[in-house]
């Protein structure tokens, strides 16, 4: 049983995943739709293994009452683990139905086949189908994982670009938790602590009441409830909360370099000993605090009724959130039901969980009344967890030909994973709040968080790294698409270009010299071909071409990105090419969309994005403070998905992030003949490096 993929090992009962009812197959999964198209790709896997049409699938994802516990929808594992689990479940269910049909028909199972749920014998209808047989087939049993899955050659639905099943409803004007209305629902907003230790000294309750709203309070947790969103907005304006015990951060804390001056938990991993003597090169790269910047602010609905606290939210993990809420509310998790509902893209751990906890706490203070919380744009920027600032320093000792024989990396970073109970915003404001232990994060190379992808995918004889984990970041941080891999790949792939330059090698040839995985080599070679790398001119002309490669987590999706930029004070993207290897692509167009989206988001972060800090905390409060890439700045993007249908499917949602940032940095260095090592690569930084 231990060989089962984690989701199935954790949820072995087949009927937890599948029910056959009235001509439909009810599929329940824990991996949720967050804009990445997973509900479509997983449906393809289920329909394929069951031999039913997609139209027969009723879908339920993320529900603590009705769906399996697959943890969080994160880390590009929904196909690798969730999909692998669902495939085994469906194959086993199909085999059980066929065995029962064979018994009834006095046939050998090999004589039978399934077509859209109907059992065929030698191609003819038998009068049996999944639904007539369902009363006889007991799915209340644990999966064995032994039923054979379809060979690639038999796939008809997997491997096709099936359209997204959720988009029509969203285009028709509904489908998000933001659009849900429960009878008698009130609109609510928490008066947010400006700083982590702030205590509520007072609030203008009379003004709130004058607007037709009311205040509920428990310790330093205070929220306003109103019958409409419009009244709520006015009452929030009028509330004028006064806070004591606010610390006063300063603008310098917004820079990654500030972390290096802070106390850290220091861990050393990798090759023992110290680097050998020899010619060496050292460089330091960084990224500041980055907002997930979901287009819609976080939203949740909660309703305390009949001894049950019911929550609708766009969290990535309904079970982890339930455990978190149960701890904070000090109640039995079985009395909390969490339903996933669609939200705006989150790209990691954004404010969704905080908003859900806000709603949950308020609902417990007004039992019987459904409560809807919608964060403001300012709160989403200022109070949602951010991707942490981070600095990665690299030192290579080089051989005679200029190739690294030993790399020492030093990572200085806040936490990338911060989902533990008690860490959601509202938790610390309640009267029973417990002091929190310092954040925990593994420093292992796999899957890694801050250390993700710090070990190069190249043949380098010795690699060691030191991870300085800083607990005291001025902004609360947690998972942002790619975690530490974004900065580590940005650093390593920038560094390789610097080493190639020092040795007088072409950056592509230099990489290929150290890259033995044939799948990786193929991507790099093909990316060089389609981007016309051979015609790449000398450095310093103002137009540059840069390439970067990584395999996400060194085990997941492969991506190679080439960027062409034009630099005249500002960096303008002229063209981006990408080659990627996903193993078996369940939905090739869905993979392309993820690659493309990752490229654009990483380009935006690399060129523009930084959360600012002032004495009040996060100073970034609106899109005006936080520009992201716009339509007029999007270059042509050519993607070649070089899938390997006979290889296992690989998670692809995050694999382009690091390579894109590095490719842009390398292209900029080629354009300028000068290197920028700190994201974002802004006009000011271009000017500064040009001045020397």
């Amino acid at each position, binding site marked *: 049983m231990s060989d089962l993929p984690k989701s199935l090992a954790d949820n072995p009962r087949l009927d937890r995943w599948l029910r056959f009812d009235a001509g439909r197959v009810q599929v329940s999964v824990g991996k949720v739709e967050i804009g990445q198209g997973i509900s479509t790709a997983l449906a393809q896997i289920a329909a394929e293994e069951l031999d039913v049409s997609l139209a027969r699938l009723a879908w339920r994802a993320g529900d603590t009452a009705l769906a399996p516990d697959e943890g969080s929808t994160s880390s590009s594992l929904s196909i690798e683990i969730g999909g692998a689990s669902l495939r085994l479940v469906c194959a086993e269910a199909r085999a059980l139905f066929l065995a029962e049909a064979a018994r009834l028909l006095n046939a050998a199972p090999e004589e039978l086949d399934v077509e859209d749920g109907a059992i065929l014998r030698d191609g003819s209808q038998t009068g049996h189908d999944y639904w007539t047989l369902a009363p006889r087939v007991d799915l209340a049993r644990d999966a064995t994982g032994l039923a054979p899955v379809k060979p690639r050659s038999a796939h008809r639905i997997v491997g096709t*670009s099936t359209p997204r099943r959720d988009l029509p409803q969203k285009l028709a004007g509904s489908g998000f938790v933001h659009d849900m209305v429960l009878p008698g629902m009130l609109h609510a907003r928490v008066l947010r602590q400006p700083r982590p230790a702030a205590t509520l000294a007072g609030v203008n309750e009379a003004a709130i009441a004058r607007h037709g709203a009311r205040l509920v309070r428990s310790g330093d947790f205070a929220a306003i409830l109103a019958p409409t969103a419009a009244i709520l907005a006015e009452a929030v304006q009028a509330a004028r909360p006064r806070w004591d015990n606010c610390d006063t951060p300063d603008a310098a804390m917004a820079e990654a370099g500030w972390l290096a001056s802070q106390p850290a938990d220091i861990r050393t991993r990798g090759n023992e000993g110290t680097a050998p003597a020899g010619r060496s090169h050292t460089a330091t790269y960084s990224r500041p605090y980055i907002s997930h*910047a*979901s287009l819609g602010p976080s939203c949740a609905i909660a309703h305390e009724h009949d001894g049950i606290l019911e929550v609708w939210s766009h969290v990535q993990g309904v079970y982890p959130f339930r455990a978190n809420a149960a701890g904070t509310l000090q109640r039995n998790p079985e009395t909390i039901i969490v339903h996933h509902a669609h*939200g*705006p893209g989150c790209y990691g751990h954004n404010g969704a969980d905080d908003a859900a906890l806000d709603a949950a706490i308020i609902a417990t203070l007004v039992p019987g009344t459904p409560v809807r919380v919608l964060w403001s744009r300012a709160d989403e920027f200022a109070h949602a967890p951010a991707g942490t600032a981070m600095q990665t320093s690299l030192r290579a000792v080089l051989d005679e030909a200029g190739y690294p024989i030993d790399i020492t990396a030093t990572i200085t970073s806040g936490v990338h994973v911060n989902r533990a109970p008690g860490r959601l915003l509202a938790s610390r404001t309640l009267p029973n709040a417990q002091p929190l232990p310092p954040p925990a994060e593994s420093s292992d190379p796999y899957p890694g968080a801050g250390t993700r992808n710090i070990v190069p995918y190249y043949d380098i004889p010795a690699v060691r790294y030191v991870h300085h984990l800083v607990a005291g970041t001025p902004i609360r941080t947690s998972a942002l698409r790619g975690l530490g891999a974004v900065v580590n790949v940005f650093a390593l792939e920038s560094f390789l270009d610097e080493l190639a330059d020092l040795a007088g090698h072409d950056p592509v040839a230099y990489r290929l010299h150290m890259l033995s995985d044939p799948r990786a080599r193929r991507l790099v070679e093909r990316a060089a071909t389609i981007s016309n790398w051979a015609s790449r001119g000398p450095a310093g002309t103002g137009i540059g071409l840069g390439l970067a490669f990584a395999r996400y987590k060194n085990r997941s999706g492969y991506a190679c990105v080439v960027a062409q930029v034009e630099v005249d004070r500002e960096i303008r993207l002229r063209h981006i090419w990408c080659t990627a290897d996903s193993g078996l692509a369940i939905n090739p167009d869905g993979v392309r969309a993820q690659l493309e989206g990752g490229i654009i988001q990483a380009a935006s972060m690399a060129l523009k994005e930084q959360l600012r800090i002032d004495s009040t905390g996060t100073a970034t409060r609106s899109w005006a403070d936080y520009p992201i890439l716009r339509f007029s700045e*999007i270059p042509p993007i050519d993607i070649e998905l070089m899938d390997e249908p006979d290889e296992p499917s690989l998670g692809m949602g995050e694999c382009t992030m690091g390579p894109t940032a590095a490719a842009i940095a390398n292209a900029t260095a080629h354009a300028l003949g000068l290197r920028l090592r700190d994201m974002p690569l802004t006009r000011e930084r271009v000017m500064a490096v040009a001045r020397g």
Partner: protein
Amino acid sequence: MTTLTINGTARTSASPSSTKLLDVLRDEFRLTGTRFGCGEEQCGACLVLVDGVPVQSCGREIGALAGRAVTTVEGLQAHPIIAALLAEQAGQCGYCLSGMVVAAAALLARNTSPTRGEIATALDAQLCRCGAHPRILRAVERAAVERAAVERAAGELRP
């Protein structure tokens, strides 16, 4: 009380005149396609047409809109941009798409065959965080072609 036309139907809002059009659409008339993104006219998620002109509904008070004609994404379901966005699979989370539909409809009403650059300019105030931009641009191009084909066919049918 404010009476205005919404998606071709006369509607009377009982909301105070200072209520934002976005709140009236979502909360009073339950037209949820118009999305709250920022409330500060900076993201385009709440874009609607007022007398054919694209405006961010989070910044318009209902009291100033008496007698005006408002079109939301719900009123544009037959517009070729909807089918074009689906054909191009031009959405990831989908939260920005209502605004994209409205912006594209406004563009195509005044420019039947926009260039890629003209489309990018017309959509430049519309934010998308997922990076669906290339597909959205292609969808607007596709919708322009579809629209032209429909009009050509209609022209040929005329006596």
